[in-house]
């Protein structure tokens, strides 16, 4: 076999994988092994597949994902810590033809923003909520979150989360599923090829629900933070499967075919 030139390899007919046109070429600020990159990729692909780039407005949180706007080529608003659901409410209410989603971590959504997310979901705001739950504060350096597991060590619970001191892991998705304003509430992960495919289906359904004006769709992605957890990427995936899934059980919690009532009816 003669030596192949690179030009012989990079041909359209040899293409087996390409990234979405909505994914922006930029320096990756997430740590190797982090789940954020995968979820960003899925969102970009879904927006492209649904053909809604011109109509989608993302709301980024405070936390590692504050820079989500650097990765997906749509219009973005960056929200104050925990307030993304209120910001999204402001956009969605005044722009009912737009597809609005928030992208929030567990510190943002379950701790400082617990009030805003509950009320946005309870009003059934026509938005998608992507909730990345890695049971820790990544950006500020691995502090305890409301979602931190019992006994899990963090920089502010160095001997492990103590129930007497800190209470219990907060299951936001279970709480959210009780709210009638939500139409679709699910818990996913992106640690294997199969779960990535499943998660993509879930996020796509969430966007389609908003396009059909069904109310709030809420997708939790149980995620790893190998830096914060002080593990290797592979070790973090294993730890997540063995520990996180027991507390945060993957699967759909709610999938209702409802229509958000129009104002005044």
């Amino acid at each position, binding site marked *: 076999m003669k030596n192949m030139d690179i030009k012989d390899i990079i041909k359209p007919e040899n293409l087996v994988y390409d990234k979405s046109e909505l994914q922006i070429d930029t320096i990756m600020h997430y740590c190797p092994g982090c789940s954020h990159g995968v979820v960003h990729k899925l969102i970009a692909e879904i927006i492209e597949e649904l053909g809604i780039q011109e109509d989608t407005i993302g709301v980024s949180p405070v936390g590692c994902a*504050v820079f989500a706007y650097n990765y997906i080529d749509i219009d973005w608003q960056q929200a104050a810590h925990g307030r993304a659901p209120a*910001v999204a409410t402001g956009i969605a209410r005044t722009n009912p033809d737009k597809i609005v989603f928030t992208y929030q971590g567990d510190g943002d959504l379950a701790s400082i923003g617990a009030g*805003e997310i509950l009320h946005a979901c309870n009003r059934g705001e026509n938005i998608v909520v992507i909730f990345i739950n890695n049971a820790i504060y990544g950006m500020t350096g691995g502090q305890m979150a409301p979602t931190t597991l019992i006994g899990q060590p963090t920089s502010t619970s160095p001997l492990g989360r103590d129930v007497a001191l800190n209470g219990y892991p907060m299951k936001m998705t279970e709480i959210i599923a009780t709210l009638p304003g939500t139409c679709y509430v699910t818990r996913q992960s992106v640690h294997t090829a199969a779960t990535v495919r499943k998660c993509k289906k879930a996020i796509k359904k969430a966007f389609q629900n908003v396009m059909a004006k069904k109310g709030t769709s809420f997708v939790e992605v149980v995620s790893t933070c190998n830096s914060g957890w002080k593990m290797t990427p592979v070790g973090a995936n294993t730890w997540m499967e063995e520990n996180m899934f027991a507390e945060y059980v993957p699967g759909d919690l709610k999938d209702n075919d409802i229509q958000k009532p129009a104002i005044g009816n």
Partner: protein
Amino acid sequence: MGELRLMKGNEVLAEAAIRCGCDAYFGYPITPQSEVMETLMEQRPWDTTGMVVLQAESEVASINMVYGAAAAGKKAMTSSSSPGISLMAEGISYIAGAELPCLIVNVQRGGPGLGTIQPSQADYFQAVKGGGHGDYRLITLAPASVQEMHDFVKLAFDLAFKYRNPAMILTDGALGQMMEKVELADYTPRRTKEEILDQCGSWATTGKTSGREKHVITSLEMDSHKMEQNNLRFQEKFKEIEATEVRYEAIRCEDAELILVAFGTSSRICQKAIELAREKGIKVGLIRPITLYPFPSAIIAELAPKVKGFLSVEMSAGQMVEDVKLAVYEARCTTPVKHFGRMGGILPSPNEVVDALETKF
């Protein structure tokens, strides 16, 4: 001539918002301004002009809803009273940092803390000096009548969009609860999508169409040098506002030996005090700042060498008096500047102001 009505200041804020083509109001109930949202909910503007009205779960949520709508180029507003404005401080700072236009109304009540529900002007510092974190300014308008409560809604939105900066109407419970004759403006339709694109298309999150870069509304900039450049740009904007947008009213200052400086409700009380004082032979005039930021320093400086003193009359322990002193200092004058005020929801009466003039000078 527009329609004449007898209306409360709070009601007129709502009516003026609908009539000037406001896109959205987000609020949370608090005395003494709840009539703003109550009036809107009764009027149901979503059925007529298409204006969105939403009762949020908190003041924190309200201001962030305003942020969301404003970032999409919409004319959005909220209103609250003192404790609620404190809760909004973070959001206001973000709005200023992201250079978004919006209107915030503070119908002040006595503080600090939960304080009282009676009128006060003790949030002057919060409005014109800070409130939230960082180097920013709020264009601050101080209406002194129900008519001005009406007129300043449109004016505040116009200035906010002109400078892409949040604007505040700083009023108080007295003006909110008071009814006066008001001439209502005709209805200005809300801007169409095309008009919003014309006005805000270069920056707002109107959806990334092909042919333009994505728009990102954020106050975050990790590179300190770039963040300093952002701040320098803000400061240029504030200089322009200070040079262009000062508004005040001078009443009987021509022959005055003493000058009262007062805004809003206090300025009304001072107008009566001037009548009473002049009956006693005290030649007194009034400078009524209409914009608290930018503060009318130039007219104070101009009067400083000509008069015997300034008395800043405020429903507070003395906040605006500092700006009067600064203006006199900038004029290289030593004209005495004194303060008279009542606090905690008490309104000064005109004769108390006259007494203060007699005892302090």
